[in-house]
């Protein structure tokens, strides 16, 4: 990391403060003069420091920001604590009311097993730690052609012609294929922009299937795993997300699809907007309201109010462990860090509290186990073993 530029600028500012105080040393004055002569931008910013209106503006802002200074906000994200140590304090309401989001979770226990077999070879399996998910995904056309997406890119654009990156660099052409899938492995994430402008953020171990050309009357895709959608508004062409036994129709909103849960349950959470959730075996449907989550389980469709911030933590790049059990936490971690987990002995029935960033190394997060009197190690083939002390 090269800090010279920032450090220099901080030094320059101390020279300016010294000058204001009237305590500037001759050599500092020279350095400041030299810096000022380097560019008109430098001179402009220097002038701004002495400008009465700009000073007033800055002081007002600083004062305002100080009012909102709250170390607790940062602390809660840095230190993961089990619920026993700290009561639930802040179930803050989500600030992102502007975006309408929907979260669907449907179960896929078999899924992680299936995916798990594919990955280990290419992912360096450390015996001590794991790195977080990277930008990795595979595009597969219905004619069988397969392409790995670049790890240095983070999103791909789909057009009727094919798949390309931000800068126009082509991944592949559609040719005669009618469908395509984009699949992230465990330990992989990717963003996709569909031809209509709809943005889809794929979580780890997720498959998005889409037609290479949308039908005139509907835009239909299917998802297995977890994905966050920002659907482009199209009046007469509803956006439909299909999963194993559920269908969600949206007329134009932002939503999020997740297919990880217990057994065959599907969760759909809406932040804002309006969507219709339909259970496909019985045909029952409900219209979801913002802040509510529907649950499809064994042919039954129900709904309840939920903490949307927690449901959407992953979109923000966070883990939120509030109230989650050991198995739920580990399930999430196993996908993100591409690691198989094995429990030895009876596991305590505990709830976790807090969360952290998804950019953390696995070992950082696993510290939470200590407080529960659990410890872990990796086997030679990279499996994570969790045991009681």
């Amino acid at each position, binding site marked *: 990391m090269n800090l010279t530029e920032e450090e220099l600028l901080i030094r320059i500012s*101390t020279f300016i403060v010294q000058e204001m105080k009237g305590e500037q040393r001759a050599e500092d004055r020279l350095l400041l003069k030299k810096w000022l002569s380097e560019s008109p931008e430098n001179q402009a910013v220097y002038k701004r420091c002495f400008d009465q209106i700009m000073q007033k503006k800055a002081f007002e802002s600083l004062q305002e920001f100080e009012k*909102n200074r709250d170390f607790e906000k940062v602390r809660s*994200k840095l230190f993961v604590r089990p619920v026993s140590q700290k009561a639930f304090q802040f179930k803050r309401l989500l600030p992102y009311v502007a975006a309408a989001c929907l979260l669907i979770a449907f179960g896929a226990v078999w899924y992680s097993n299936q995916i798990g077999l594919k990955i280990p070879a290419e992912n360096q399996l450390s015996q001590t730690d794991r790195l977080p998910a990277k930008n990795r995904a595979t595009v597969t056309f219905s004619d069988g052609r397969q392409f790995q997406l670049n790890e240095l890119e983070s999103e791909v654009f789909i057009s009727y012609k094919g798949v390309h990156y931000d800068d126009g660099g082509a991944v592949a052409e559609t040719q005669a294929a009618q469908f395509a899938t984009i699949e992230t492995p465990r330990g992989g994430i990717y963003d996709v922009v569909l031809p209509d402008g709809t943005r889809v953020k794929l979580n780890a171990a997720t498959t998005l299937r889409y037609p290479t050309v949308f039908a005139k009357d509907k835009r239909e895709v299917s998802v297995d795993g977890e994905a966050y959608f920002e659907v482009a508004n199209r009046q007469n062409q509803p956006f439909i997300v299909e999963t194993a036994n559920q269908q969600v129709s949206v007329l134009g909103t932002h939503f999020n699809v997740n297919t990880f849960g217990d057994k065959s349950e599907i969760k759909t959470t809406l932040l804002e907007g309006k969507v219709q959730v339909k259970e496909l075996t019985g045909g029952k449907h409900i219209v979801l309201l913002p802040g509510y989550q529907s649950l499809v389980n064994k042919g039954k469709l129900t709904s309840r109010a939920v903490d949307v911030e927690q449901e959407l933590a992953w979109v923000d790049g966070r883990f939120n462990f509030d109230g989650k059990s050991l198995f739920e936490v580990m399930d999430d971690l196993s996908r993100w860090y591409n690691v198989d987990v094995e429990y030895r002995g009876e596991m305590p029935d505990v709830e976790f509290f807090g969360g952290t960033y998804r950019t953390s190394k696995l070992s950082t997060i696993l510290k939470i186990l200590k407080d529960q009197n659990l410890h872990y190690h990796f086997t030679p083939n990279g499996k994570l073993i969790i045991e009681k002390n």
Partner: protein
Amino acid sequence: MKYTSEKELLEDFSEGKEEACAYIYHRYFARICLFASSFVYESKESEDIAEESFIRLWQSKRNYESIQHLKAALYQTARRLGLNYQASRQRRFNRVDTYIRLQDQNQSNQLQEIVYTETMAELYHALNKLPHKAREIVELTYLEGLSNQEVADLLNINIQTVKNQKLRALSLLRKLLSRDSFHYLMSIVFFSSKI
């Protein structure tokens, strides 16, 4: 949560001590927000960027040679986050090729924002060292732009007391920051509203 030596603070910080992190957060949060605000439109977004910067600084677990070094890392992180923020916003609204160009254009300016931010933050810090009463009056007259009479009414004190307090604050600030070229700040604080 009081540190008197830089060395002690940095040592505690590298060891991951919570008090050290809290101290650094407390000391620099507002200015990193101010810096971040040059990248975004909403102050809430600036705060998000600042928060994230502190979290990353903390997670980096590096040894910093000096406070300047640590501050530089903080600015660097905040700037990177700010640019990402801008990029993703541009991406949402513009065609892809234009946002990259815009980003390039803005870059040099935003680096210099460090100078403005640091200078303002240090001045602000000095103002805040004033005794409570004097500071309150300075804030009301200067930052809030109230007249002496309005301040007197608000604080339920005599207008002469307000004038006296302002003079007292002036001499204290002179002592705190000393010498004549400080008149830039003096003039804005004390002569912008008539004594």
